[in-house]
């Protein structure tokens, strides 16, 4: 029922409240932000039974609340107008560029917002009545339209909720908090915390790239300051604290001394609860709440707790805020004025405001707690989606459409090393955000970031510039996690790119002018898109001259960044033709018979050693009974005799399979005919005769049998083949009536060659063997299936590759032919030249063994 696919980022965050409980003051709603919150009634719009529909009304409320100042009624109208604008423009507004610089994603539910919603008038009315708290600027007694004292009470849960998720739903709005309680010994944390080694993932999720980088981990910092896990600063701080500067070590000792300051046997504050007010649509409820709690609520509460443990941060600040509020209330100040004052004086209030502004806009919040502790919060966003929106399930336009990020198999080595990093913003801006080049680490990283190009894989870059690949990967993951970059297949002029069906065409006009600024000398963006929306061609073919190559690749990177284009990748499955199946069936049948014959022989030998002809034949017939039920005819007898004979002349038969062939031809005209007919629907029946008959040197044998049979080639005679036991063991007496009967089989696909069943494995092997024949047989040999839709132009040495090579590479190649792995990825994965892979792939494709499809 709930959406499983990619949801547009929408935090549904409408307010953040800080509630404390202290011995002196009891439960207190210390601070809430934004200062003038929408009423809970408007958020919930409880009268409508389908909460989902209300998204539209909440979206508008949301936009009010995001404004710092919204007490004038004209502004509401402006906002409404804005929405009308976006309504006509299609499914909500998307983001123009990866930087998400557009002010807000008002995607509404599932992406269409209130566009064209038929019942919208009702909602509007509703909204205008309840949605805004008129005259609320002097209303100190209620928040979210609820009485403050009631809120205070209900948001201070019992100790049972310590460090647990606190989730309270009031109609369709939900209060999500992570209550933190003081320990029984009056401390906010254990005195000695174990220093845990951070996991890779945690490191990535930490904001501090510079600090975590191992190249820069010189022992120059004797006592590095240990951030609580998960709370390294991100970037984008305007603060003076440059990560990696000298400050940390001082701060470390600072923190140490301060941590005891919080030790008070009888602490005043016993708990605090940071509560995030959301109104997620019903179908997204679980996911949105979980995302908010896991990524923001809990982490922020832990950060506050850490600060509280160090120097009573929360309680000191709370007292200050309560004090200021009290005075303002007595003076009759308006809330908005007071809040400005609060934000200026209290870092805690400021941090909540920053957090709210960023998270409710789906951005990253950089919070500066004190001189030594910065951290960043975000709800991670989807980078890409493999799914295409349709009329019924819109999704965020502009989201990069690709399957390259889909994890197919956990065990598989990730492609990270082979991917390129596409920076989503200007490297210089990024470097500045990272703290500049002042420090040694900063300079190292800056140098590295400047070297990142989207056309080279990380592996190549790290090799070329002598950077450890581990560092490279770490930096990449970090930049990706913090939305600064995206991992893509290295851009190449030899790849094919198409206009993404998920491109956000509504933002085209803005993007086009942006594009024109970037590439003033090139054709316009619409022109590029039109080029790329035609018949897919290698990107190279759009580049007019060699001199244009670099700039065209830059254009490509620009288009990729904005989700305008996506790479068209190739996927293939192996198609097994009836001929191969028939041929393998023959082989298997023959092996079966050999085995049985062998057994029979052994048994016979062990019995008395005396060869009794009649006994022998009895045995044989019973052993063969599963596929025969054949009457004992003179034929039978003769066959037995021939078996004996062949035993004697084993070696000679190996060398001249034609003996059996002739024998078979002989039987053909004999009364043996009915016998083979009888078995014809067993589908297991074939003849080796045919195998030899199919050889070019004895084509005449083919004709008498069955002119319709498309003669699978005589593969089994290759001395190296594992299925050769047929030849090395005694030749089979029973083979003569084995005929490949492709018409009994249907072509089919092998869906996962890696996990092929034993029969499938043999088919694959048989296909592999056909490649080699190209070298040995003259072109007339029909070595590819008749119904091959694209027959090879030339059979010997197709496209510059010999059949032998093809055969050798086949086991490698077929691993990727499961329809899930792009052929474009084969070269880096297998360490081959891409040209080589293309040749191999095309050779196999030409021969009609593949079902090929191209998508993103």
């Amino acid at each position, binding site marked *: 029922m709930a959406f499983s696919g990619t949801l547009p980022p929408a935090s549904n965050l409408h307010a953040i409240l800080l509630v404390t409980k202290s011995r002196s003051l009891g439960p207190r709603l210390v601070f809430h932000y934004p200062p003038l919150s929408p009423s809970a009634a408007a958020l919930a719009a409880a009268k409508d039974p389908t909460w989902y529909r209300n998204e539209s009304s909440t979206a508008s409320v949301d936009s009010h609340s995001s404004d710092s100042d919204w007490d004038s009624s004209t502004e509401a109208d402006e906002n409404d107008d804005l929405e009308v604008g976006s309504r006509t423009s299609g499914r909500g507004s998307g983001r123009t560029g990866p930087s998400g610089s557009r002010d807000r994603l008002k995607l509404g539910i599932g992406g269409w917002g209130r566009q064209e919603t038929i019942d919208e008038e009702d909602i509007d009315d509703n909204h205008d009545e309840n949605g805004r708290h008129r005259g609320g600027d002097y209303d100190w007694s209620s928040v979210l339209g609820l009485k403050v004292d009631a809120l205070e009470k209900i948001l201070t849960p019992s100790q049972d909720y310590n460090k647990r998720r606190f989730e309270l739903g009031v109609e369709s709005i939900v209060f999500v908090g992570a209550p933190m309680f003081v320990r029984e010994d009056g401390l906010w944390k254990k005195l000695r915390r174990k220093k845990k080694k951070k996991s890779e993932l945690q490191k990535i999720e930490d904001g501090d790239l510079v600090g975590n980088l191992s190249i820069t981990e010189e022992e120059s910092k004797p006592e590095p300051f240990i951030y609580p896990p998960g709370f390294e600063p991100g970037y984008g701080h305007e603060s003076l604290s440059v990560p990696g500067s000298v400050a940390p070590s001082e701060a470390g000792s600072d923190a140490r001394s301060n941590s005891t300051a919080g030790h008070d046997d009888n602490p005043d504050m016993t708990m605090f609860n940071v509560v995030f007010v959301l109104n997620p649509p019903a179908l997204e409820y679980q996911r949105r709440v979980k995302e908010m709690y896991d990524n923001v609520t809990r982490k922020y509460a832990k950060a506050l707790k850490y600060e509280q443990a160090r120097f009573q941060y929360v309680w000191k600040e709370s007292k200050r805020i309560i004090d200021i509020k009290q005075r303002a209330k007595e003076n009759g100040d308006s809330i908005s004025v007071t809040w400005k004052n609060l934000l200026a004086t209290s870092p805690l209030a400021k941090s909540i405001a920053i957090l709210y502004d960023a998270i409710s806009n789906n951005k990253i919040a950089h919070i500066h707690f004190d001189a030594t502790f910065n951290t960043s919060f975000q709800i991670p966003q989807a980078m890409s989606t493999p799914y295409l929106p349709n*009329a019924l399930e819109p999704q965020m336009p502009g989201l990069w459409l690709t399957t390259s990020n889909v994890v197919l198999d956990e065990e598989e080595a990730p492609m990270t090393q082979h991917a390129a990093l596409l920076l989503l913003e200007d490297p210089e801006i990024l470097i500045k955000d990272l703290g500049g080049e002042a420090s040694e680490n900063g300079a190292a990283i800056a140098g590295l970031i400047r070297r990142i190009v989207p056309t080279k894989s990380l592996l190549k870059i790290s090799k070329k510039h002598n950077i450890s690949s581990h560092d490279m990967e770490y930096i990449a993951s970090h930049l990706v996690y913090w939305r600064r970059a995206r991992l893509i297949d290295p851009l190449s002029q030899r790849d094919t790119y198409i206009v993404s069906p998920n491109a956000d065409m509504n933002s085209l006009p803005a993007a086009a002018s942006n594009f024109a600024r970037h590439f003033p000398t090139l054709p316009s963006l619409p022109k590029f898109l039109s080029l790329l929306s035609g018949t897919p061609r290698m990107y190279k073919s759009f580049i007019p001259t060699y001199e244009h190559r670099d700039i065209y690749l830059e254009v490509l990177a620009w288009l990729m960044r904005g989700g305008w284009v996506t790479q068209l990748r190739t996927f293939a499955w192996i198609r097994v033709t009836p001929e191969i199946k028939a041929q393998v069936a023959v082989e298997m049948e023959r092996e079966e018979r050999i085995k049985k014959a062998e057994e029979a022989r052994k048994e016979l030998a062990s019995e008395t050693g005396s060869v009794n002809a009649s006994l022998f034949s009895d045995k044989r017939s019973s052993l063969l009974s599963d596929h025969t039920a054949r009457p004992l005819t003179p034929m039978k007898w003769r066959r037995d005799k021939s078996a004996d004979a062949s035993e004697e002349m084993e070696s000679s038969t190996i060398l001249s399979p034609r003996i059996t062939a002739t024998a078979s031809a002989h039987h053909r005209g004999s009364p043996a005919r009915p016998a083979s007919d009888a078995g014809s629907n067993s589908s297991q029946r074939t003849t080796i005769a045919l195998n030899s008959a199919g050889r070019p040197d004895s084509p005449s044998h083919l004709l008498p049998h069955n002119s319709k049979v498309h003669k699978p080639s005589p593969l089994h005679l290759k001395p190296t083949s594992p299925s050769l036991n047929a030849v090395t063991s005694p030749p089979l007496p029973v083979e003569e009536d084995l005929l490949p009967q492709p018409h009994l089989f249907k072509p089919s696909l092998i869906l996962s060659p890696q996990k092929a069943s034993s029969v499938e494995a043999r088919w694959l092997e048989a296909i592999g063997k056909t490649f080699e024949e190209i070298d040995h047989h003259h072109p007339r040999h029909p070595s590819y299936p008749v119904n091959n839709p694209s027959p090879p132009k030339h059979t010997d040495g197709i496209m510059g590759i010999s059949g032998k090579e093809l055969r050798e590479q086949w086991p490698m190649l077929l691993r990727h032919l499961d329809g899930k792995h792009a052929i474009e990825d084969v070269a880096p994965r297998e360490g081959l030249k891409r040209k080589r892979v293309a040749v191999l792939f095309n050779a196999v494709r030409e021969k009609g063994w593949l079902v090929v499809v191209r998508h993103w």
Partner: protein
Amino acid sequence: MPTRAIKAIFYTRFHYEKGSRVLHQVPAGAITPSTSPSALPAPLFQFSSVTQYLIPTQQFCDRLITCCVNHHRIIGYPVCIKEEKKYERNEFIFNFAVVISENEADWACYGQVVRKLGRLLRGLEEQGGFLSKEEDGVWDDDNVGLGIGGSGIDDSMGSSGFGIGSGSKVYALCEMVLEDLNNYAECMIPIDDSNTINLKLFPTRPPPPPVLAHQVPILTMSLAGLQSPISSDLTLNRVLPYINGVNSISRIAQLADTDLSLTRRAVQHLVYYGCLVLLDIFSFSAIYAPTAEIGGFIVDDDVKGECMRYVRTPKLRVGSAASKTTVGRSESERSRDERSSISSSVSQHSETASSTIHISDFDAGENHDVNEDDEWHIEHETLITLYTSLRQGLTLKSWVLDNLDLLSGIDIRRFITFGIIKGFLYRVHNHYPWQWAPPFDHQPAFPCTASLVFHTPTIDSLDNKSESSSGEYPSPP
């Protein structure tokens, strides 16, 4: 969809002296420990940690209040009835709450039920004291264990036989609601002569997308049998016959002579209930290409089977029964079938369907009365080949010409539609620069696409013609 998602239902009352008490709980022991033999071994959660949400301050009464504790989600609707003289302290506060799993994806429908139940019980209590009259003596009797919130009455009920449970209508109500909603997702409980409780769990559906005039609705189920219940909406009734997977919304409005916006709204209702999907107008000049989900189609034999049944056309019996002996049908007949199947789609598209064979009247189950022998057999292999040969830059028209021999017995419109409905095909939109260019800026900047053929300025061809006729150049290819 009986899911048995409701873990427990309980009825909590607030007593002015004795605090919040669970008066009834189903199953026994779910909320407060019970000595009843059938009781759960341990309560699902600690009652004391949720009492403040079950019986909140008046500010939060008459609202749906949910809270999560111990992996359970408790959905309650606290009701506070204020009436002087009737009640002690002039208030009667109760909450009739259900417990479901915390991770229940779609719990909104339980919220609806709880809300309705809360309001109904409020009404019943206000009318005739449905809840309060059962309580005579309950609070007096039960002095044992009342000190600690929550372990009181139910305990005594369990041990003393059926103090309140046996004859209690409220208890019976809890039991019936739990059982019926879990088993049948709905319930109807007669309370007295004039009151009946009707509850139903309606799964939450996403809001329907806007319906645009150019979209083509196609039904995913047969609504023929449902005609009468649907009939209350006049527009819908008029519109329905014209929904055939070919007509666009605006065309439907025209044919049915209905207002366009009403038509859109009617169709939107059908979309909401999932009876209908919206497509693009089918066109042979459109381009279709596979999406990433094509892999799912190739792997899944069931879908291929479904596709085969959907796209195949009945064999045509041209004129007499002679052509029924189609075992060794001639090539010519085959291609005639071919053409007619295509033309039928085309002509339907161009709304001149009346004269052609109605093979495309859509109704999913339409095919099953047709004799198997009368239908083309289509190999899965063929379907795969056909779908994978669609690609960007190739118009459907050219594709049909390329694959004419494989298309016998396949209704092309249905073939494409099937792929789009299942999501493994999409319609490729060509982007021409002039689409966004200001009106005066109509430079003939032609992209290198197949569409060039159709857009070649006539001047060129005229020139060519004149040139070739003058004999200067060989005629153009």
